[in-house]
């Protein structure tokens, strides 16, 4: 295997594993299935077939696969060009994704602006 193909293949394997884990957790509730092994009281919702990957047509699935393949090629090529910058870029991207997901979760928990209750600072108000 050439020097260029090995990082690309490793990136492809990593992305495929990450995608399978994402799908298993978000749509098949793998974490709850594992938790039920430990605690049988854990409720596992049924797998939905009208959202996510299950709801996508084969054409859309193909383009998502193509995007993941292209991303793996970019990551492998970047690793081949400069390893330090690639590592920094991946860590930066993961940090940005984590911050964005946390901010979105907080925003959804708080709710829309018009639904928030106004709490007066002064009880006499």
């Amino acid at each position, binding site marked *: 295997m050439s020097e260029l193909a090995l990082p690309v293949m490793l990136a492809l394997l990593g*992305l495929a594993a990450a995608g399978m884990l*994402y*799908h298993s957790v*978000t749509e098949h509730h793998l974490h709850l299935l594992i938790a039920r092994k430990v605690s049988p009281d854990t409720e596992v919702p049924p797998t*939905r*077939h*009208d*959202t*996510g*990957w*299950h*709801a*996508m*047509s084969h054409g*859309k699935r193909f*383009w*998502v696969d193509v*995007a*993941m393949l*292209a*991303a*793996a090629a*970019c*990551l492998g*090529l*970047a*690793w081949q*060009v*400069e*390893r*330090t*910058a*690639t590592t*920094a*870029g*991946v860590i930066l*991207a993961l940090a940005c*994704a984590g911050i964005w997901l946390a901010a979105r979760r907080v925003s959804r928990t708080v709710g829309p602006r018009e639904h928030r209750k106004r709490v007066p600072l002064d009880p006499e108000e």
Partner: protein
Amino acid sequence: MFKRIYQAWCRSSARMACNPWVLVIGAAVVLSAVMGGRNKIAGHESGVMHVLAGLAALALTAVAAVLLTWAARTVAAASGHHADPATIPVQAPAGVKPVTVPAPQAMPARPGEPAYTLRIRPPDPEAEAMAAEADALRDERVVPVVTTGGTLYETARREP
């Protein structure tokens, strides 16, 4: 195919014409040529190449991040009935009444109107309460309208 490529080229060149960074980079190149930039970096070729390689790696990582973000958002936003749950047999455990969705019924088209598919949904108590509240308001003058968000509006009946 070539027409689309040409259109993309025209679009990108038109955007670049409005982008100040193109002017800044062009000015920097001209200035470096005038001021003898090639002589100044004569001893730092390896460093310059290293920085350029790092920038290229960062750009490739950014492209990969954009592609993966698009893929994740596309999957998360997908909804529909690629595999209709009504067509999937569900084996309910003994003694448990399965919750099933009635199969969609094809409705015949009336003359001059398009055909449609009626999907009977299980009864929704909240929607029924909203409909009952709207019916209670209905009289000769007022036509209640309930939006999908649950907001109730009263509209005056139009005189014939």
